[in-house]
């Protein structure tokens, strides 16, 4: 232990000289075998590194916790969890049992502009009068559910007020049973059983929270179900110190907080890069042949099938899949073609690297091919040497150390929260499929020698429509995420865009596209403001996976039509150069815009729409809504 501590103080001393990268911090605090992590957190606290003025705002996460019970005990766990994702935590804990007072007075310590997340700890016992829990036959009834629902509504009332001047995420724990039913084995015969009571009340909570913007329910009941309520709650610690949970369960809670922090900070992983031999199936296809690899019915083979099912689950909710395997391409194509017990199909993969190159190089190429950052990649390989190679070559990639026992792989993958996002819309769920379709498009592009005939063979359709409440989250997420084909890189919140939609001086246009391979979803956004004599193109962007097909031309065509519709003829625009938006640099001049003014940070353009015609490309059909 002493040796460990010495090594630690050396590391921290080094960090004080030169701040570590996100990934260096993460690999220290996220080690699979966290032995003396409490010692680590103490050393971190002592070092004062958290207060170092050199950290940038985006590296910090500011968390407020308030509610009932001695929540201070959570602090070291949350510090560890934040650092494990490379975030510098600042944690504010509300006064003991003062949830309603903190909310009613909007305590500045807890709720202010710099806080990213307010997390509420509150049991039903805190919301309802305590005597209700002395008579379960009265509580576990329709009437009891109504009373609980009213109590929740009352809390939500406070949260709605908080929402008005607080921009961070609001998170509230759901409710959970901790006893055997007070009615014993007769429980299921009751109209409202013990377990049904809690699920009904949680349904009510979820309904309220769905209507509260940028908020969520922290699924503590699910965590308790997996961990076990008898282990999660230490009755002795409750009596001694009003400490709500056991030490082990605090750790579980802090682990479950991590996907929220990543969601808030926008560091969500998108792509699962997979090895094949002894990862998707047992054996080596190059040696055993397509009919010799193991996918059941023996127990080991079944474990690989279960693992494939878990991967399919991720793919179906939007995770992009890629192959990185030391193999001949023909061999693996044969497996996918001939083995009908393969759960995963070749067309699910957005990039395929089956070759004899080093796997780090392949990862690098995969990220290039599907146009995502290296920090979007997660790498799964059964071979520790390959894992080490990738980890050492590219620190941004998250390299998974799978459990030794393959029977645990499926669950391990399902429990990984790296791909979680705060909100999963229809578009997000299709992301895996859309990236895979893109690969097929590109392959068609390569096989077609004449670009023009390729474009026509796509049968592209672009759907133009005004922004609505339904498309609002997607519009905001595109504005927030698109960096390359983005004219001004202005980021807006849902509230702001909602205001623009209602304002007649603004026009919010959004663009969806589809071709013969499938739908791209909503990929483009244009924001126009109308002045007295001119219209101004405030924002104009297209998702990178839809670039290079002329969709941007159809979008501009639609924008021009909108401008003419309100009786204006001059459209002005600004190009705000960034490190990343080079692809859109020459777009406006190419379309006939004239430069009117410009310096390094802003170039202004203008076009007279009576003079110059903006055409829609002949290979794209426009559909107006």
């Amino acid at each position, binding site marked *: 232990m002493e040796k460990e501590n010495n090594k630690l103080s050396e590391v921290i001393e080094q960090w004080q000289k030169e701040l570590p990268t996100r990934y260096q911090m993460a690999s220290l605090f996220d080690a699979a075998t966290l032995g003396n992590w409490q*010692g680590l957190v*103490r050393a971190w606290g*002592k070092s004062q590194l958290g207060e170092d003025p050199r950290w940038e705002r985006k590296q910090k996460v500011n968390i407020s916790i308030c509610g009932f019970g*001695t929540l*201070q*005990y959570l602090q070291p766990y949350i510090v560890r969890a934040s650092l494990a994702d490379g975030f510098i935590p600042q944690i504010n804990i509300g006064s003991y049992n003062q949830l309603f007072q903190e909310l009613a007075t909007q305590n500045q310590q807890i709720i202010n502009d710099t806080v990213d997340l307010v997390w509420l700890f509150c049991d039903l016992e805190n919301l309802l009068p305590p005597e209700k829990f002395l008579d379960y036959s009265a509580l576990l009834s329709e009437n009891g559910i109504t009373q609980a629902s009213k109590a929740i509504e009352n809390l939500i009332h406070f949260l709605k007020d908080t929402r008005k001047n607080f921009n961070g995420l609001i998170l509230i724990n759901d409710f959970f049973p901790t006893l055997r039913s007070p009615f014993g084995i007769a429980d299921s015969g009751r109209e409202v059983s013990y377990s049904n009571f809690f699920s009904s009340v949680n349904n009510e909570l979820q309904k309220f929270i769905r209507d509260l913007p940028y908020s969520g329910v922290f699924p503590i009941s699910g965590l308790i179900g997996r961990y076990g309520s008898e282990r999660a709650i230490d009755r*002795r*610690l409750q*009596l*001694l*110190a009003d*400490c709500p949970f056991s*030490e082990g369960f605090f750790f579980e809670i802090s682990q479950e907080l991590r996907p929220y922090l990543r969601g808030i900070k926008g560091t969500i992983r998108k792509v699962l890069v997979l090895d094949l031999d002894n990862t998707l199936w047992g054996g080596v296809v190059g040696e055993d042949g397509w009919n010799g690899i193991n996918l059941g019915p023996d127990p080991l083979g079944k474990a690989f099938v279960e693992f494939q099912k878990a991967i399919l689950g991720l793919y179906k909710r939007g995770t992009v899949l890629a192959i990185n395997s030391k193999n001949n391409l023909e061999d693996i194509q044969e497996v996918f073609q001939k083995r009908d017990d393969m759960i995963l199909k070749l067309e699910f993969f957005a990039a395929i690297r089956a070759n004899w190159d080093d796997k780090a190089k392949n990862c690098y190429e995969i990220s290039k091919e599907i146009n995502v950052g290296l920090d979007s990649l997660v790498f799964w390989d059964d071979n520790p040497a390959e894992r080490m190679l990738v980890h050492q070559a590219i620190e941004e990639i998250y390299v998974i150390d799978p459990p030794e026992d393959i029977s645990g792989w499926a669950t391990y993958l399902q429990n990984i929260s790296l791909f979680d996002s705060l909100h999963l819309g229809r578009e997000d769920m299709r992301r895996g499929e859309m990236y895979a379709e893109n690969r097929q498009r590109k392959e068609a592009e390569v096989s077609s020698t004449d670009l023009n005939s390729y474009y026509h063979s796509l049968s592209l359709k672009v759907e133009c429509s005004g922004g609505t409440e339904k498309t609002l989250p997607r519009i905001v997420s595109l504005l927030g995420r698109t960096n390359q084909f983005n004219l001004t890189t202005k980021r807006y919140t849902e509230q702001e865009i909602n205001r623009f939609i209602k304002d007649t001086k603004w026009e919010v246009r959004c663009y969806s596209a589809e071709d013969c391979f499938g739908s791209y979803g909503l990929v483009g956004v244009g924001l126009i403001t109308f002045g007295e004599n001119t219209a101004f193109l405030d924002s104009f962007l297209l998702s990178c996976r839809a670039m290079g097909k002329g969709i941007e031309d159809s979008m501009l065509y639609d924008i021009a039509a909108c401008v003419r519709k309100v009786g204006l003829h001059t459209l002005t625009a600004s190009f705000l150069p960034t490190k990343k938006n080079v692809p859109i640099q020459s777009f406006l001049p190419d379309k006939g815009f004239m430069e009117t003014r410009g310096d390094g940070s802003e170039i202004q353009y203008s076009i007279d729409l009576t003079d110059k015609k903006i055409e829609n490309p002949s290979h794209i059909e426009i559909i107006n809504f």
Partner: protein
Amino acid sequence: MEEIKQRVIQVLCTTLSVGEDKISNVDKFTDIESWDSLNHLHILLGLEKEFGVKFDIQETANISAISNVSELIQRKLN
């Protein structure tokens, strides 16, 4: 007994982040500079881990000074 006492002191030093010199002349936990009711629980859990014992709710009342806690642990270990 002396060995148990030394190990108790070590747990106190780690949990309260203080040097041994701050503890050498003290017996009652409440007389240690950085003690508070919050880290009292950490001391308790730290002692349980160090000695592989579990204090029941009655025994926790006696966890208030180096001397009485050492005696309690000795009794539990025998």
